[in-house]
């Protein structure tokens, strides 16, 4: 099995190196798998230098910042593989998480698998996305709760975050990749909903916690506004409501 790890990134070179080191450590823990890491330099100033990122890292450079979706799609085209792992540069992947994700896709068939992500204080950042019927729409279930008290059993969801997302390569091609119309955010939810419409499973690996610093590259309060508008234009009324069972 061949895997391409895609890490879109802008600036924050030290964090990126740490992210890569964790990803490589996780990759080394998986048997019988070839892999490569592709970093998309999304308009960093100064540009990343491949040599500074470590050996064996492929570098794709955009001189001007592009959308997350565009960066991910470009990297996937750069190194086609049987599976892609999309990773934010502020995610420190645990080996157990990667093994769990791969195992879930092996068991459930071609589809998408996210991961349980925790913030620096061990509270949940992501363990699956559910949907409200009102203006809230999609939301991270159990966000902010101590990970130790959140059940690890549910693995099927309608959507998972793109911060750490494993997807079958053929499925990614069939879906046409991320929709590049989304400027920032919600492209991952859109991809998952489209996958569900093709009968593909959308899963979340819950067994291990992986650290996610969240929104390290862009902290603007309205950073998701344009994407959110587009998402609701396209999907309002077209996703089922599974509500907030954590209340």
């Amino acid at each position, binding site marked *: 099995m061949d895997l391409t790890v895609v890490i879109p990134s802008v600036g924050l070179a030290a964090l990126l190196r740490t992210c890569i080191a964790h990803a490589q450590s996780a990759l080394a823990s998986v048997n019988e798998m070839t892999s490569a890491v592709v970093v998309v330099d999304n308009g960093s100033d100064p540009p990343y230098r491949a040599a500074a990122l470590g050996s064996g890292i492929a570098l794709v450079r955009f001189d001007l910042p592009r959308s997350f979706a565009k960066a991910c799609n470009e990297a996937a085209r750069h190194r086609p593989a049987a599976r892609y792992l999309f990773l934010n540069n502020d995610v420190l992947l645990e080996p157990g998480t990667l093994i769990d994700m791969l195992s879930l896709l092996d068991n*459930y*068939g071609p589809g998408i698998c996210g991961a349980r992500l925790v913030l620096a204080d061990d509270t949940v950042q992501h363990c699956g996305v*559910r*949907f409200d*019927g009102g203006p809230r729409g999609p939301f991270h279930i159990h966000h902010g709760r101590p990970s130790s008290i959140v059940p690890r059993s549910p693995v*099927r*969801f*309608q959507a998972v975050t793109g911060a750490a997302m494993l997807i079958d390569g053929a499925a990614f091609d069939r879906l046409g990749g991320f929709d590049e119309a989304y400027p920032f955010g919600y492209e991952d939810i859109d991809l998952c*909903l489209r996958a*569900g*419409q*093709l*009968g*593909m*499973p959308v899963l979340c690996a819950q067994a291990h916690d992986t650290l996610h610093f969240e929104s390290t590259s862009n902290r603007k309060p309205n950073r998701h506004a344009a994407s959110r508008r587009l998402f609701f234009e396209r999907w309002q*009324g*077209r*996703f*089922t*409501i*599974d*509500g907030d069972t954590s209340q």
Partner: protein
Amino acid sequence: MNYYFLPGTGIHGGIKVGFQFAQMLAEHGAPMVVVTPDGRAPHWFDAAVAVISRPAALAAIRPSDVILFSLPHDYAEIRSTGARMIFHCQGTDPLIDPILADRDVALLSCWEQADSYMRERSGRPPIAVGIAISDCFIYDGRPKIADQLAYMPRRGVEIADAARLACPGLRFVAIAGASEVETAAAMQQSAYFLATSVGEWLGLPALEAMAAGCVVVSVPVLGGMEFLRDGETALVVPADRIGGALADLAQPNAASLRSRIRDNAAAITHQYRLNKQFRRLKTLLGDTLGEALSWT
């Protein structure tokens, strides 16, 4: 791929039963999508299964795919697709007879009366997949309003009106256009539920009300009599005697009868919990139901 065709997203028990069934199959690993006319999803109950529009589905369906359906009016168009077919029977309208006679259609039944009807008309046993009620209906012991009666006026409102005149001491609360959660809350608040749809193929609200701790008084129905046992889990009374039966039931000296019926009803509804049906489907998927579905 498995496509479950539904005629809309309105507040009808069959829509919810279809979505619940599709979701359970998806959770068991079957590639599954629900098809509605315009691709819109219902928002009056919780579900987590993908939805696509009918034109999109018809454009995508191949002969190796499976179409599940429950509305007999869909049969001709579905048959013309060339896909394999599964009829999920939710009512024994004689319109379903040509479907039952079609040996290319796999048959699923949800309750005993439908099962018997399908056996008789098709000459073969359907796969009994059952039905379930959502967990939000399960009574949690909160105080009830002792004189409150809930009913759904969509069918048989004249029966409810007559009962209201006969029972001035009861407060009638109509449940109409409400979400599943709102319906469950109204039922859990009410001491009684009146089912007024004469000859109903399956009165899912009566079963939900039993789970919600109501004493159910129902007109005779076709399907669901396995849980509507007169004098044991409910009172099943002809429409013209509903008012008198309710008035008697509401008397102080009928407290033990109310208590017995309510307890028996709550007990029997445990056979219809989602997790029970989920486990039943797991077993069936290892057998005939699994063979009927598409797994690619």
